[in-house]
């Protein structure tokens, strides 16, 4: 984890929100807009510490709500809770497996809108929710699941291309190395 990685995460959150606001193609074709932030939180929670998870949730949530009619702050807690739970069990998760990333993306994308809706109805607003919302929820969940492995690939590529690769080290310790030949005469 370095500063560049951190900047990259915030930049990704920023661009994801911008993409959701500007690109209307998913809504035109499948009737629902994709939410990329929960799947991004999957990546962040499996790659970074809890402080970064909290910062990414706060930044992503505020950016999302600023372009939406949501009350500002609505999306912060759902994103954080998604990241918090994954971060809590990260030791048990095979983070490098695509299917694990996909399942986590599905779960995160399914949970975040429900949590946001619970907050919204408790702050005296009336979001448009009907039977079609079940279809939207399904689409958001599915697309979120697909997006999660893509975030891992994207960050893997970006970090590989833009940062120094870690220095490869031998598995043997130098002081335990077996020296062949005669002992030097002292």
């Amino acid at each position, binding site marked *: 984890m370095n500063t560049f990685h951190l900047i990259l995460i915030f930049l990704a959150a920023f661009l994801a929100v911008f993409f959701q*606001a*500007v690109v209307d193609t998913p809504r035109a074709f499948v009737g629902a807009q994709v939410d990329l932030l929960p799947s991004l939180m999957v990546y962040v929670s499996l790659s970074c510490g809890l402080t970064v998870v909290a910062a990414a949730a706060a930044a992503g949530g505020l950016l999302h*709500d600023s*372009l*939406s*009619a*949501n009350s*500002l702050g609505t999306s*912060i807690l759902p994103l954080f809770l998604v990241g918090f739970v994954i971060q809590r069990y990260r030791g048990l998760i095979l983070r490098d497996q695509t299917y694990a990333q996909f399942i986590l993306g599905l779960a995160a994308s399914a949970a975040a809108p429900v949590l946001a809706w619970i907050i919204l109805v408790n702050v005296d607003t009336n979001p*448009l929710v009907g039977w079609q919302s079940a279809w939207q929820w399904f689409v958001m969940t599915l697309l979120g699941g697909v997006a999660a492995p893509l975030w891992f690939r994207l960050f893997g590529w970006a970090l590989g291309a833009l940062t120094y690769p870690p220095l490869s080290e031998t598995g043997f310790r130098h002081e335990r190395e077996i020296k062949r030949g005669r002992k030097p005469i002292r």
Partner: protein
Amino acid sequence: MLRRSHYITLGVMILLTLLVLNLPDRVLSHFKVAVSGLFMPLFGLAGSAQDLAQKAGQAVLPRSQLLQQLEHQRRQNQELQLRLIALEDAERENLRLRKALNWPKPAGWKLKLARIIARDPANWWRTLSIDAGSRDGVRADSPVLAGDGSLVGRVSEVTFTQARVVLLGDPDCRVAVLVQETRDNGIIAPSSSSPLDHSIVDLLYLSRNSPLRPGLKVVTSGTGGVFPREILVGQIVDWRTVGYGLYNEARVSLAARMNLLEEVWVKLP
């Protein structure tokens, strides 16, 4: 087992959410504007890219097609000029009669063309952002129209360079309307049967005796003070009697195609 740092972080995040959600409306609005301002360079860039693509597209249009379009526009212009002459005559007569009856002169419309730069990223609202703000004279509650003159919604929030428009069918955009032919009054509200369908809204509180039929035009009534009179909203699709026969309710197909809008007109005060 959660560690102490986990509890602290969880507590901080819950507190932060509660704090932001409970900020006073004015502070919240300024805060929202400040955060959304971060996207301004990107919106500008997207707009420029769109302009560039449009120009590139125009540059490769064949000359014959351009000439054909020019001829069509010229003919349309002549027709409109003839209609304008007739209308100017009617306007002069209208003003003369108003003067004779001591009626006040109607205020003219000032319109501002604005490009749609973003739509609500959440699925449960019907709002969009436009590239005209207070510097262009846009104010909160300014009516927003489509290119064909049909109603789109109203401005809800305004910043210096941008504004947010609440579309018809959003819970925050209720419009007093009347059925053009029968003059029955009602209110446009989100569709109860399909709230997420962008082309259908409900027309509530119609008189139970109103002779409704599919295809009747629905226009703004002008009551309420936000929307001027006689702006086309849509057409009645079907209706039913509700409230134990006390009043009628109709489904209205909106005239403006919200999903396909690229530019809108804002009526300036």
